[in-house]
């Protein structure tokens, strides 16, 4: 790890100004910054310390029912928050599946959605891959069992955030403050495919800071669930994850509205309008859940070593739908 300064700004505007300088990176929970720096993938000259900026803190369920997650809110606090567990279940579940208890006590909401991909070529300092300005995505001809099955190309990373699919399923937006002032962007549109810029995973500009994530009030008829499959039970990166939000009229078994967002399958959290349409077509039962899972993976294009992820994704999507709908597998 190279030597760096740690600069604590007095306020958000100063933080933004500092972050616009070359070699300056945001320092929140610090987990991914330290990981990338120790690995010599990044060599920051200064960390801009965001701790202490009041605009970035806190978790609040507002009287309107809207949820506000400060970007610096710890993942463990999100996972354990009673109101989030009750009314934004998928978000609490997703936060609770991130890494380990120790990391969840350090990692933040902002850091989780902004972390860089876990691709072993990207994380290897000796490999100058497409994401680091090189001309090749080595996953194409190399080892790709954890890589994209949807939306890949020209880079084939998968987006690493557990939290993002759950937030998108619950229609969250990010508040972003930067040199040009404040903007709000739907999280679904915040993440960008490698076709836009293979070096980036989102549309955050130089000097911009995600200050909070806002999740709109969720009707009491909405049920949500986050489910992931992984190789190791204790803790691991997901092979595939999915967040489902279902809205059914009280007492009815037809789906008024559905959101299906998969993680670890594509370079961005992957929303599936096809699966959502399949869920809305009639009474919700196991065969409809199965049809939705098939629809979600209809366009999958597995690489040489990851066709298994298509199979797992179908199972995970179906199980998550069955679980959130309160259905038992036949």
């Amino acid at each position, binding site marked *: *790890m*190279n*030597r*760096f*300064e*740690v*600069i*604590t*700004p*007095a*306020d958000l*505007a*100063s933080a933004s*100004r*500092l972050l616009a300088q070359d070699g300056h990176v945001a320092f929140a929970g*610090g*987990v991914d910054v*330290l*990981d990338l*720096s*120790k690995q010599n993938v990044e060599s920051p000259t200064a*960390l801009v*310390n965001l*701790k202490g900026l009041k605009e970035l803190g806190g978790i609040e369920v507002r009287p309107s029912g809207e949820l506000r997650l400060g970007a610096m809110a710890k993942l*463990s606090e999100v996972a354990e928050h009673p109101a989030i567990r009750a009314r934004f279940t998928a978000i609490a579940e997703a936060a609770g599946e991130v*890494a*380990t*208890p*120790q*990391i969840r*006590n*350090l990692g933040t909401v902002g850091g989780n959605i902004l972390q860089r991909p876990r691709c072993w070529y990207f994380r290897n300092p000796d490999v100058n891959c497409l994401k680091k300005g090189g001309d090749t995505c080595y996953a194409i001809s190399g080892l790709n069992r954890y890589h994209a099955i949807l939306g890949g190309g020209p880079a084939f990373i998968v987006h690493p955030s557990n939290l993002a699919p759950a937030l998108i399923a619950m229609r969250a937006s990010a508040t972003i403050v930067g040199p040009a002032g404040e903007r709000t962007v739907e999280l679904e549109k915040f993440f960008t495919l490698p076709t836009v810029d293979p070096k980036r995973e989102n549309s955050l500009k130089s000097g911009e800071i995600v200050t909070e994530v806002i999740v709109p009030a969720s009707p009491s008829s909405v049920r949500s669930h986050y489910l992931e499959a992984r190789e190791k039970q*204790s*803790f691991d990166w997901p092979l595939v994850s999915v967040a489902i939000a279902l809205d059914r009229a009280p007492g009815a078994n037809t789906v008024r509205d559905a959101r299906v967002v998969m993680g670890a399958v594509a370079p961005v959290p992957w929303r599936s309008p096809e699966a959502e349409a399949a869920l809305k077509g009639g009474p919700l039962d196991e065969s409809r859940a199965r049809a939705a899972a098939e629809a979600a993976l209809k366009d999958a294009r597995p690489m040489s070593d990851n066709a298994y992820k298509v199979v797992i994704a179908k199972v995970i999507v179906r199980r998550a739908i069955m679980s959130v709908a309160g259905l038992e597998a036949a």
Partner: protein
Amino acid sequence: MNRDDRKPRKPPGISRRSFIKGAGVVAAAAGLVRVRPAAADEKTLPAGVVEKLGPEATTIELNINGKPATLEIEPRVTLLSALREHLGLTGTKLVCDRGACGACTVHLDGKPVTSCMVLAIDARGRQITTIEGLGTPSNMHPVQAAFVETDALQCGFCTPGMVMSVAAALERNPAATTDEIKHATAGNICRCGTYPDVFAAAFRAVKPGPAGSARSVRAAKDA
């Protein structure tokens, strides 16, 4: 048999552990050359900046195991390095250095964190508890005692981290359930595979609780 008879070959005053610790202190002392007085920082702070540290070493104070400690470190130094190499608290172990194994687990304000993924400067103003602060050989924490009683270790390298994770779980819920214990130690890897013994030690330290707690489940199994 007295103490001297028990360890006849040990040279007086030096052990492998104390030699390595001593080498670390020498290395830390070498780092002092680059220290810049903290007072100089305050005069030259640019507008909109409340603190600027490094890249040179700077003087910080940490509260470790209830006692203040002053040290000279560069801002890039992790809490783990500060503990082991600057303060000689080698009970906290360095293994993966990426937050993935749990060997370096300490408590920050009572919550378990991987100290390799925390900068020492970020631990200022917080209560840091290491395995040395949890208990001593003559006055062990109940979790440490339970690990000894159940022989819950083989090579022992993961043990301080395991103990810190279990102790934190029992601090949250003294009558923790089996699932809570497993969940709390999910971030601690033991390559000897002593997990069953670790859980057994945790059960031993769990206070008898309502139905469903690890202790009562264990008691029911044993009965």
